């Protein structure tokens, strides 16, 4: 079965960014995303889920170019003040051409 190798970008952030992140992912060229609810701990300490709900974990399969754009965007827009983490992996996607 033919597969295409794409970048799997995973973003974990506080929930308050949900709407903005999803909208911006689309604008940056992501064709879709999968979102799961999460909780977590990081350098800023446990997210105060009582006032903004748990973290969100967004996965999006995109072309390397789009992946870089997403990373750039999040880095200079959110890293300083918000709880957010981003990492990239490779994934062999079935019917992958659909997502670039």
């Amino acid at each position: 079965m033919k597969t295409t190798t794409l970048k799997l970008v995973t973003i974990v952030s506080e929930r308050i960014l949900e709407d903005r992140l999803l909208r911006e992912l689309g604008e940056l060229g992501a064709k879709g995303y999968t979102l799961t609810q999460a909780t977590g701990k990081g350098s800023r300490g446990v997210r105060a889920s009582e006032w903004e709900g748990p973290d969100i974990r967004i996965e999006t399969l995109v072309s390397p170019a789009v992946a870089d754009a997403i990373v750039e965007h999040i880095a200079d827009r959110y890293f300083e003040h918000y709880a957010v983490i981003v990492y990239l992996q490779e994934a062999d996607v079935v019917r992958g051409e659909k997502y670039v």
Partner: protein
Amino acid sequence: MENLGLLAANLLSPIILAFVLGVLAALLRSDLRLPEGLYDALSIYLLLAIGLKGGVELNQTPPGEFVGPALLTLLLGVLTPMIAYNVLRRLGRFDRVNASAIAAHYGSVSAVTFIVAITFGSMTGQEPEGFMPALVAILEVPAIVVALMIAFTREKRVGSWRGALHEVLAGRSVVLLAGGLIIGVLVGPSGFEPVAPFFASGFQGALALFLLELGIVAARRLTDLRKVGAFLLAFGILLPIFHGVLAVWLGGFVGLSLAGSAVFGAMVSSASYIAAPAAVRIALPEANPTYYLTASLGITFPFNVTLGIPLYYAVAGWLYV
């Protein structure tokens, strides 16, 4: 004496004891947590219920009676965040961003503190005016706007000002409260009757369950008390007392009853921990959540529901003789 009676009556209500149980459970590191869905469900139910009941009452209130209190609420919604801001800046030496962030919380209102105050009144047989929930809806928004404006008037901010405004105005507490009010006004007592058992009878029990969870949440904040320092601790108790007594006193001038102005005092003294934090997080991301959350949820809320509310009733009683 009789004030001690008030205090005891409050501390020994199932609602407050449920809050205490929640705090203890958290300190015991119990696995007791309300499922997140239930927490949301209860807050939706409570906000809609007070909205509805307020609306039904408003439907019966001659406009004349309501105008005065409404305007006073608006006034205090603008005034209290400014007071808070200046106290934090001048006495607390907080930077501009954190000062306005905290001010937004203390200018706005905590719906639960309001509900506990109402409940306390009816427990002690003192019914406040029925339209009080309408005042909560009025009080919630302006303070946040004012506080954010203070912050945005100066240098350009990273946060989104319009995003924050939408977060407040379309936020679920405003929608449910205002929506419930309007529905209540439209349907009136007769229309409310069929849904009354659900929204009226179940109310206080649901509130107890909700406070159980809030206790768990607040207890986790207690661990941050050290981080915020002695000033914020004092601020979180003294400013509410000042705001509260001020409101009780002014309440008399606009014709509020004894119980009415006591509840009004509790409202004005309370610090928001749902609408304000969300808005502030969006508009002023560089402000430190530990400050405003710990102050409003870890200090002021517990103080108000235990000691504050009886105090405001006592002050009202004392001013009204």
